[in-house]
């Protein structure tokens, strides 16, 4: 009764909505996480422009570097789409290749973030420096933590697949990990817009006027 042993993972009972319990759980969790990031972003916006000392956003944000890292993260989402498609059609080798690509791109994004943080600290911006520092590091830091969890999750899928434990009955596990990964990606688009794009635009305006 190997399948009964994993009843929670592969339900035999049809659910009332036809949607798998775990997938519904993930959607709800992501909804909850939206409110989490929403509150952090609200904190950032409410304190925007209220720092009493520098460095201020437009002096320190490097839009070029962050555009590259944003592109990297977007690309990783694309890679994951490919890996899920590969898993669905049963091509596990391709699945592992694409998932590894996703992980590598995710790590690259994290590398960019570490580099950026170091750069900022070097230029005199720490979370204690001013309100910008406090809100910036907390918001992007929590996003980075989400990416890190995603990377660990995807890596574990990779290794499970290597050991042959991620067969067709586990397609949903891949699907759910994907929901999370895409969500984290979408959140970054919002953060990128709110912090980087608007920060730099506001800075240009200030410089021009």
């Amino acid at each position, binding site marked *: 009764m190997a399948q*009964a042993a*994993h009843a929670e993972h592969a339900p035999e009972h049809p659910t009332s909505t036809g949607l798998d319990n775990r997938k*519904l759980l993930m959607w709800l969790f992501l909804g909850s996480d939206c409110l989490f990031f929403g509150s952090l972003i609200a*904190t950032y916006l409410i304190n925007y422009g209220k720092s009493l000392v520098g460095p201020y956003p437009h002096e320190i944000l490097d839009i070029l570097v962050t555009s590259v890292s944003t592109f990297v993260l977007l690309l990783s989402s694309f890679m994951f789409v490919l890996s899920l498609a590969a898993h669905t059609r049963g091509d596990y080798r391709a699945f592992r290749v694409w998932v590894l690509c996703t992980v590598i791109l995710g790590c690259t994004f994290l590398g960019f973030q570490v580099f950026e943080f170091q750069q900022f600290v070097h230029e005199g911006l720490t*979370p204690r420096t001013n309100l910008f520092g*406090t809100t910036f590091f907390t918001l992007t830091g929590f996003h980075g933590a989400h990416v890190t969890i995603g990377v660990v999750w995807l890596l574990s899928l990779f290794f499970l697949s290597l050991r042959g434990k991620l067969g067709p009955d586990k397609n949903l596990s891949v699907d759910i990990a994907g929901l999370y990964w895409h969500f984290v990606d979408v959140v970054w688009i919002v953060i990128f817009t709110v912090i980087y794009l608007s920060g730099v635009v506001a800075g240009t305006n200030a410089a021009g006027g």
Partner: protein
Amino acid sequence: MATAAIARHPAAFWDRVWMWLTTVDHKRIGALYGVTAFLFFLLGGTEALFMRLQLMRPEQNMVPPETFNQLFSMHGTTMIFLAIMPLSAAFFNLIIPLQIGARDVAFPRLNAFSYWTFLAGGIMLNTSWFLGGALNAGWFAYSPLTGLTFNPGHGVDFWAISLILLGIASTAAGLNFVVTIVNMRAPGMTLTRMPVFVWMTLVVSFLIVTAFPVITVALIELAFDRAFGFNFFSVTAGSNPILWQHLFWVFGHPEVYILILPAMGIVSEILPTFARKPLFGYMFIVFSGISIGVMGWMVWAHHMFTVGMGPVANTMFTLTTITIAVPTGVKIFNWIGTLWGGSIEYKTAMLFAVGFIAMFIIGGLSGLMHAVSPSDAQQQDTYFIVAHIHYVLFGGSILGIFAGIYYWFPKATGRLLGEGLGKIHFWLTFVGFNVTFMPMHFVGLNGMPRRQSTYAADMGWNLWNMVETIGAFILLASLLVFLYNFFRSGRKGEQAGADPWDARTLEWAIPSPPPEHNFDTIPQVHGRDAFWEQKHPHAAPVPAGGANGQLHPAEHQGGGHEPIHMPNPSYWPLLVSVGLGIAGYGLIYITHRAPGAFSLNWGGLAAIVVGVTFAAISTFGWYKQPAAGPEH
């Protein structure tokens, strides 16, 4: 009898302990929630009694101000997060799977994790009493009073971190119950056939899932400010401390409905049973519950009418707040409609339910009086507000919860709670409650601010403060009666049988206490009040709910023929919670700090590393362990 058996067989005792530590059965977890939360309820009540003793007379020095401040801060936090919410959770656990005809919740081990994490948070919060003092800034913890400058002790840290843990526990439970209710209904139980208690649980679970992230962010920001010198609420760095109030009340007002809607659901179950009539205006009660939940998000700043938001904001929040009176009124009118023309039997459960309605009307109307912001400027932060919240949360939630205890105790234990003692309990509670809290309206309007450790003798508040203290002791007496009844009935109470109240919903269709797998065959539901319909097939038809004649998709599947899989017991959820608890203590002590000087505390860091590692390994064990056992 059970205790004698335990004494003779010590091994059996440890087996039982092990059974409780590893249980994933929703009924046992419900019992754990209920007992733990009731102990916290007694603790919070004790804190209140000390406050009432101090305020019995003017200018007393029985409780020093600092202790008094800790008492009221912890009283609020305990009653809200450790008593009312988990008492509601106890009912969710015990009743929801039974009412929707399921064998368990969607994620039994996640459910156990919720309980253990709640317990870890509750214990952590209360250990602060012995580790340098508890929270002393009120349960609302307004910045900057919670800042390091004004609050160097660890009380605020204990509060912040344990509330984050409690938030994790509640969010996990909320997610679990949304999935359970949405996905695990018996065939034929469409949304509009669900009992109202299930509906209210669904609304509350959504509110928990959406409101708790907001307070979690606020708490993280507070903890970071205190532990690392961040500037979220630092006035000297240019921040506005009102940000805390917005984040807190954006969570805090939905939280009020998280506290009251379960009691409304309970009462909506009890009234039809004892009036022998279906709930009047089912759809209106359901929709008013949903709209209360939704509108609860638009009114938070009515807690902040006096912070100087300006006339535009005050007007807006005044209007949104008074609008909530409409769905609340609809609920009350429909309850009266349910009673009208009925054949009402006054068992203790029913007494508490009608007591709830009588008192909630008062609490609702005084709430309307605060919603009117200009006159609220005279009421805000006075005892008038204290009276209001207790009419809502004690006269409302607690009376509703007691109604639920009397109603479902027989289902959970197989024995009835004593009716004679129950009635004494009800009348003592009802009288004691009004004697304690009605005079708070009077002293409030006569200008007595809340959260005062003492007051002058010439203010005209002396008489009613004395009366309030007497009322508090009547409430103590009522609780003692209840406890006696509870223990006595648990052992010697009358056998209840499956359906002692001639009730209407599915949980009464199975034996009391229910077997581990709840239903031998999953029931097929054909309408609202499913069990009543089975018992009275020739009475007036109960509306089917949903589109007429259309079968629910799952209805085609038929029920009851597939093998029964019960979830395996598991200690992994407990171990994950233990890990989180250890990491939580580490977070509290992560730095040695004074304003402007922070250094890493290696002990705290070690505790975080150990705790997180422990939790991670346990999560892995959880993942590896099969969820369900072999066929029965």
